[in-house]
């Protein structure tokens, strides 16, 4: 069944692309989380006080 290769290729491409797309979501969200952490730190430093137990709370 020489055509089987094409079937395999098509399904591989579909899932590779979809997973790549989802991976890009994950990477962007991770970058965003880091940014939020940095911002919180900055904000805490600016306001000169650190509310206890808040540094580890990031939603989303």
């Amino acid at each position, binding site marked *: *069944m*020489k*055509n*089987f290769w*094409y*079937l395999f*290729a*098509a*399904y591989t*491409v*579909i899932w590779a*692309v*979809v997973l790549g*797309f*989802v991976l890009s*979501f994950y990477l*962007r*969200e991770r970058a*965003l989380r880091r*940014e*939020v952490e940095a*911002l919180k730190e*900055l*904000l805490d430093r*600016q306001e000169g006080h650190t*509310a206890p137990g*808040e540094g580890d*709370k990031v*939603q*989303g």
Partner: protein
Amino acid sequence: MVDARAGQRPSPRVEGRAAGLGWGVGALLVATAAVMVVALYMALVWAPPERLQGQVYRIFFFHVPVSWVAYLAFAVTFAGGLAYLRSGRASWDRAAAASAEVGVVFTTLSLVTGSIWGKPILNAWWGWDVRLTTTLVLWLIYLGYLMIRAYAAEQAQGARLAAVVGVVGFVVVPINFFSIRLWRGLHPGPNIGTEGGLEIEGAMAATLFVSLAAVTLLYITLLVARIRLRSLTDAVGEIKARLGVGGIR
């Protein structure tokens, strides 16, 4: 939300909404995965081989839904863009942009899988037929949509320009289709998107239906996840602007 007391923190409301969408994504993901597994089983195992094309025709169980849903995605971009131009509400723009992105990915899949099917059956990776050409043109239009967003000087302007491209680009689709059909001459009647004359029987139709459901669910999941990511990005951007550390975006 536990930290509602951090009231002076900018936009906890936006973050909260994004978190809500997060739950939605989780639920959708489970549903999509379940239907997808069934669809894959039906498409790859359960449906009988096609009489003329043998096994390769199974590409169609995903190629066809992906193409249809890509058009749906661009229709959503069109509607979202229109609503954004009318109301100026960022949420419409987020939906439109997210849908365009998913649409471009799905159109890419449609073109690639169609090409992979065409090689063994029509003995060519590509043919300038009506559907292929129209889809390719559509793909280019929405690449332009994403590029104009990315290259805009500021976000709101990019959203507006992109909405215009999305609206105008979608309106041209019928004219595009018609002119390309004229150019190629009249085409043999379509049989669920094939030139190879696929014979659809009961089991195949059922499989196609289930995979259409799976792909539509996949679209909705990706759409919601992307919208959520966009609102998070926007919220962070908003906070940065308020803190005066923006401009690096």
